[in-house]
């Protein structure tokens, strides 16, 4: 069963930046890029659980602030030779509002 939740407006997320949505005990990092695409992944790098929401965003990826792993925001997968995956969520933007599909 899908569970789409509005989490705020697009304007509240800086372009090439991220905000955190707290879902119970889980932190979800919600990203926005220069094309106003929105992505959401668990806010924990598969390497050492660095907060991806604090990283530098470029295109459809983010660089983790702890050890520079690059994570593909569309899948949550580590890029390059690194291996690992953090969970990702479906997103959509309607009338400037951001929705996440929570599990």
């Amino acid at each position, binding site marked *: 069963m899908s569970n789409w*939740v509005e989490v705020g407006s697009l304007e*509240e997320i800086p372009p090439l930046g991220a905000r*955190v*949505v707290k*879902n*119970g005990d889980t932190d979800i990092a919600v990203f926005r890029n220069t094309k106003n695409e929105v992505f959401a992944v668990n806010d924990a790098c598969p390497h050492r659980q660095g*907060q991806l929401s604090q990283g*530098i965003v*470029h295109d459809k990826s983010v660089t983790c602030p702890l*050890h520079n792993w690059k994570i593909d925001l569309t899948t949550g997968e580590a890029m390059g030779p690194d291996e690992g995956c953090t969970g990702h969520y479906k997103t959509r933007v309607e009338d400037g509002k951001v929705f996440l599909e929570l599990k």
Partner: protein
Amino acid sequence: MKEKLVVIGNGMAGMRTVEELLKIAPEKYEITVFGAEPYGNYNRILLSPVLCGDKTIDEIMLNDLQWYADNNITLHKGVKVTAIDRKTCKVTGEDGTCAEYDRLLLATGSDSFIIPVPGHELPGVVGFRDIKNVDSMLTTARTRKRAVVIGGGLLGLEAANGLIKQGMDVTVVHLMDWLMERQMDEVSGEMLKNSLEAQGMKFLMKASTQEILGDGKVEKVKFADGSEIETDMVVMAVGIRPNIELAKQIGLHCERGIVVNDTLQTFDPKIYAIGECVQHRGQCYGLVAPLFEMAKVCANHLAKYGIGIYQGSVTSTKLKVTGIDLFSAGDFMGDETTDDIIVRDATRGIYKKVVVKDDKILGAVLYGDTIDGAWYFQLMREGTSIADIRDQLMFGQAHLGNSGHGGNVVAEMSDDTEICGCNGVCKGDVVNAITTHGLFTLDEVRAHTKASSSCGSCTGLVEQILESTLGSDYESPVAKPMCACTEHNHDYVRQAIKDQKLTRITDVFEKLNWKTEDGCAACRTSLNYYLISSWPKEAYDDPQSRFINERAHANIQKDGTYSVIPRMWGGMTTPKELRAIADVAEKFELDTVHVTGGQRIGLYGVKKHELPLIWKDLNAQGLVSGHAYGKALRTVKTCVGKAWCRFGTQDSTGLGIRLEQMSWGSWMPHKFKMAASGCPRNCAEATIKDFGVVCVDSGYELHIGGNGGIKVRATDLLKRVDTEEEVLEYSAAFIQLYREQARYLERTAPWIERVGFSYVQSSLEDDAQRKELAVRFYESQEVTQSQHDPWAQRATGGVDAHEFVPLKVVAG
């Protein structure tokens, strides 16, 4: 419809170009590759270890057949191309296979040059060029005993070494007076010969081959002086010849190689050529490093991005023979206008010669101890003045007490020696990654192993491992691009920002043809610094292009909490400040309170949303940001000086406070630390700081470029001055010179070693220049918001409020 690219030649140059092309324009072409050899692409430079029996063919494959399938590349292996029709743009192979092209890439490589003496076509005469040659040598070695290698150059000696390892009795025949005359001078050539003789290799010098004799197969080699030698095999290793037969046949302009311009285009604009078959600016190359530089440029033009030109390569040589260490680069012979600096130690088997002209290195030849080869080579390529280090040059880089490269011979390290202390990577891991993944560059090793990707202090060691694993084929690029997003290097980009008055990162991307839309974590942080330091009034300081610590004005810790370290001016504090820190620690339940190395107090384990609350409490008691999180001025360490100390000569504490008040909040290429000691006992450790003051009875000694971190470096003495005002002016000018000229993430120590201490000193001793530098620093301090407390702006000023609160809390 995709355009069609046909590549003739399935070797390292061709496939490297295809790889580069797939990286930047994966959908542009439908790619077809013709290869005369019946294999995938293999690492030709590792044929020597295969011949020695150290590696198998499988181990030297770079792209197996699956790779071609995965990338939708049609590979016609074992098909020699016999015809190209330039009018209809069609390529035909000897078996009748046809392919049409929109763009054609010739990567036909080179062939062993076979001296056309009588008998050169007899069975048993082989070149040393491909898997087939190696197979044939190995087969002969199994049943036969004697081999003659014609050619005492790099290739010939590697072949001879391999055949000795296979149990053969090998004689090397060389026409010239000494071995490897294109890389070695007579002394080192002679030393090389002695070492090889000790390993069982025999030599016939100044011997001109006249004829190869035999009945149906090789039996003897006859020389010009009439002498003869019996043998079962002759390896011709006198050189390579660009393979230009096909190009000539279709009327492309060729001289020694296929002539190409700086974009690797031939005289037919639809046809590009790359690798050993080309001649660029009159030069043909037989090493792999230039190929890779060419491949990058060529791929860029095939992708029709049109950026980047190939300007030729400077190459260096190493020999892949166990137990022999030699290095050679540039003009190692010199002439009457040059100086030779020579160290020779016959007992240790060491010979080093560096050829110098006008305080610049023109070339070097090293034998027995090649650890500093890479360093000399770098000084040579960058044209660095060696005036300051001339007296120590021959003792090597480790002797300079510099930052960076260590002084170990990696070849002698065991596989379990730890190379990268940050990430726990051993030598064996690095070597393994290089050979199994076919890595050639520092960046590739970093990506695969993490070695050298954190603090960078092992970069020199990793480069040495690359060099010893790949032999002469490793070469660090002349000017390293900033990152994979651009072809341009740091200095070029910063100059463009100044010249074109660029004030936003997006402008830089546009004007300098960035390859990626948003850059990456490496270039965006660098660019943001170059923009705000070049145009403090005008540039937009982009928070999203700052590392989290500088965006949040606190230091992120491994568990995602932050540290808070307020400023203590000149290491001084008050009961009121200490009480404020204690109150905050209790109120927010911060258990870890640590006295830092920079004379202040750090609070750890702070949750991000509490940062503004803590800052507000601290601000209320007069405490401000210590910038312990930034590429910025950190601390000014002091001793109590003459106010208390019986040895103190000046008010070092007061001076430290003035220095800190002048410079706090300024952004720098990297962190920047200062200190002021009240007497030469130097309790504030001023001589390992970026800028240090040691007070003496008659005034102030100013020291620069120290570092107490990764590699300890003591400062250079800049100047002795009389007054505090002079100290402040010199300090401001030095900081500004560093801010304007060092590359992002370069500390003062490596910067000074790169540009030379005398350059920095003369810049600061010039009165007019010093005053201008200082004024630019004061202006930058005034106009940026840097002299305002960033904590106050966020605690009560409402700046970046979104940074510290969640977007939404959903009940779980």
